[in-house]
């Protein structure tokens, strides 16, 4: 088995645009906003970037095809730019492209950009779109909340959880994230909410109410990566390195096969297992300092706690209600507010998660900084739907950790 890329790539700089309903900005503006912060942080000139990857989920909605929009927005010096799309995991996918390019020695410095301009559709929620000619003929054209809501039905049936109890744990997930997002100037939604508000919200897709769903917003996030040696040569001292980067993609077993019960993410379990092995983590509940998971919906975050191995199977409801994942808990989850408060500009989200872990590791997270020095920050970026998805797990940490 391959030995992995632990500590072979360092993050030189990162940037993140202000997420939100950016009526003032198009995709180009958002990319430049994230990039300016990122390159200033990296302390290099644009001419030093050897290759770039662009992650976008809904290209028909904003930038259009190819890597050209990134090259044009940043006026990159005719370097290779590749656009990647892997459902909502596109952000981490763009990071993976840049990191692998550096790890392979193909280039010294690489850039990953994730962007999405979703608020040009005229309506709330993610745009309705085709999933391909063959798929559309025999599958349901549902909404994202509708697909993820089904987790709750299966989870209740499997673990014998009362609907009210699960709903309360889901509410706690959102209340916690809103409390965190309120402290983050780059978050879209910055108001704390109460459990009562979450429980009383209008139903979107049963049993997911409005506050069980993340927002939909515009945003961009960016990373510049290089080797630890080059980073040091450029004068960097505290290095955040990539400990693990793993992706697992459904092959149709959940959708068409037999055995999956609908209550968890098969792929996340595989990606997490591989990522822990790559990072040398043996007890994630004790070793992980921070988690940024794909909380597109409260129920997704809840079951993901089990899929990542930080809660025992069937134990996430208790852990959530016990506050294990609150900002002052054992392993804070979404200390930046998560998708819940940032919203989910598809291509940007995976990089936004890594950005938060990067800031936290360097002690640069301001008011929301975790007091105990973090060691490993995990981000989990999920694309698709429970029965057919792309699950990406990235772990970053201080060099030598």
């Amino acid at each position, binding site marked *: 088995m391959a030995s992995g890329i632990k500590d072979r790539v360092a993050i030189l700089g990162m940037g993140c645009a202000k997420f939100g309903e950016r009526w003032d900005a198009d995709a180009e503006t958002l990319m430049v906003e994230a990039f300016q912060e990122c390159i200033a942080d990296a302390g290099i000139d644009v001419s030093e970037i050897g290759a770039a990857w662009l992650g976008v989920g809904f290209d028909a909605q904003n930038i259009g095809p190819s890597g050209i929009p990134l090259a044009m927005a940043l006026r990159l010096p005719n370097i290779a730019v590749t656009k990647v799309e892997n459902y909502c995991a596109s952000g981490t996918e763009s990071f993976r492209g840049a990191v692998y390019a550096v790890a392979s020695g193909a280039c010294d410095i690489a850039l990953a950009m994730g962007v999405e301009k979703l608020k040009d559709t005229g309506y709330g929620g993610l745009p309705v779109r085709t999933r391909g000619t*063959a798929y559309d*003929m025999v599958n*349901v054209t549902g909404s994202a909340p509708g697909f993820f809501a089904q987790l709750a039905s299966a989870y209740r049936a499997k673990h014998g959880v009362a609907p009210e109890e699960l709903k309360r744990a889901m509410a706690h997930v959102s209340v916690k994230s809103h409390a965190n997002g309120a402290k983050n100037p780059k978050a879209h939604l910055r108001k704390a909410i109460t459990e009562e508000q979450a429980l009383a919200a209008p*139903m979107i897709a*049963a049993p997911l109410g409005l506050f069980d769903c993340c927002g939909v917003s515009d945003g961009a996030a960016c990373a510049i990566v290089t080797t630890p040696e080059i980073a040091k040569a450029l004068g960097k001292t505290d290095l955040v390195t990539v400990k693990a980067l793993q992706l697992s993609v459904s092959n149709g077993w959940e959708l*068409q096969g037999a055995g999956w019960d*609908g209550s968890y993410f098969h792929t996340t379990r595989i990606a997490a297992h591989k990522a822990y092995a790559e990072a040398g983590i043996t007890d994630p509940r004790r070793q992980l300092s921070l988690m940024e998971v794909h909380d597109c919906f409260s129920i997704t975050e809840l079951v993901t706690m089990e899929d990542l191995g930080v809660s025992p199977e069937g134990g996430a409801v208790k852990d959530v209600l016990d506050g294990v994942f609150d900002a002052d808990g054992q392993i804070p989850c979404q200390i930046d507010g998560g998708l819940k408060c940032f919203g989910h500009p598809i291509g940007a989200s995976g990089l936004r998660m890594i950005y938060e872990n990067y800031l936290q590791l360097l002690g640069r997270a301001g008011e929301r900084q975790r007091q105990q020095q973090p060691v490993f920050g995990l981000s989990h970026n999920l694309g698709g739907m429970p029965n057919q998805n792309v699950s990406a797990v990235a772990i970053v940490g201080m060099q030598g950790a």
Partner: protein
Amino acid sequence: MIGIIACGAYVPRLRLQRQAVADAHAWFAPGLRGLARGERAMAGWDEDAVTLAVEAARDCLTGLDRARVGRLVLASTSHPYLDRQNAGIAKEALNLPDAVATLDVGGSQRAGTSALIDALQAARGGAGEVLCVAAEKRRAQPASELELVGGDAAAALLVGEADEVGAEFLGAHSVSIDFVDHFRAEGSEFDYGWEARWVRDEGYAKIAPAAIKAALAKVGVAPADVDAFLMGAPMRGVNEAVAKAAGIPAGVVREPLAQVLGEAGTAQPLILLAQALETAKAGEILVVVGFGQGCDVLVLRARASAAGAMRGLGVSGWLARRKPEPNYIKYLCFNGHLDIERGMRAEFDQKAALTALYRSRKAVMALVGGRCTKTGTVQFPKSPISVNQNDRAIGTQEDYPLADRLARILTHTADSLTFSPDPPCYYGAIEFEEGGRMTVEFGDVDADDVVVGAPVRMMFRIKAVDDNRGFTKYFWKAVPDYLPAAAAAMAAQ
């Protein structure tokens, strides 16, 4: 012996309450109050004459080898397609072999009985077994009498030659007269009808009795010996008056289901016949009358096996599976009479790729999956490589029809965000008892019906309509299990 081998029917679950319709129109057409009694069958937004026909045909063919059907005839005056054979769509949905003849019949309220007579005559001529289906989704102008009187339903009869049949075909008689009680021209949305008194006195009262007498004389049956008079005229007292004029005793005129179903146009005589066969005793004489630009009369004699011809739910079973619908606005929307704001999500382009539909027609239209001949793994849809995680066998899958198999709900939601003409959109994953799973929309459900583990059966429905190009996309939905144990056992054969 030539006759009816099997029969079936289908009635949509919703029953529009006539009082609600009359109340809505009372300000404008107070006279409709006289028709405000009872309820009428109301197709869902996702049902049309073809889907109604398919369900009736499946009901009729419960437990029978479909390869025996040599010819499929579909009669309707509400065919969804003018030029794409509607019977051909039904043939695909029923997964009949390609070597079957199909034919659409229409153009008159008499189309159903004419098709049935033709089917019986063809069988007599050695054509093999004919599946004769009549289906109607009545399109009525709001505030018209037809809106209250009509109903949406279908019946299917398998006819042919056999040693024993449910009802023996004795003979038929037809007269054709261009008596224009109503008409609907090419491109017109609604019927245009003439004064009811004239239709009754010059039409029904003069044309039908003469035809009935001629039919009975032809087969040598005395009017007084008729045991069941099956005519579906929606006008009060007309069926009784016609029977009387033909010399048939008043007591044998069967209730035309006016209060519980409504008049399903050209399907109505066949529906009444299918229902009569449920309880017909050996030897009973049944007279079936179809009226429209003339008159068709069929004379049949029930055999000892008449009740056995109904193998599925039958008319009575479907009538019992009902949900009262008190919301007239919903009826208007389902039928496209009220153009409500549907939201931008409804703008999603539903263009169908006809090439892909043709390639995948067995999966899409007949819900045929694949079964790996090596491992037995069942999956939907078929694929080049098996989904079996332990044996990715290549090219080993044989056709495996799933449409008639029981499944259970694995996951579910009620989606209020996605566009549906009937929100919320219920959907989820189901697993077939004998293997195979799929994500599917749930039809004919209320919130309480959708729970993990609940048994469901598949129904052929409209998936979406491409309004831009006028193309209807069909697929299958899961509905709560409706089959009683005996019929389920037969279906499993």
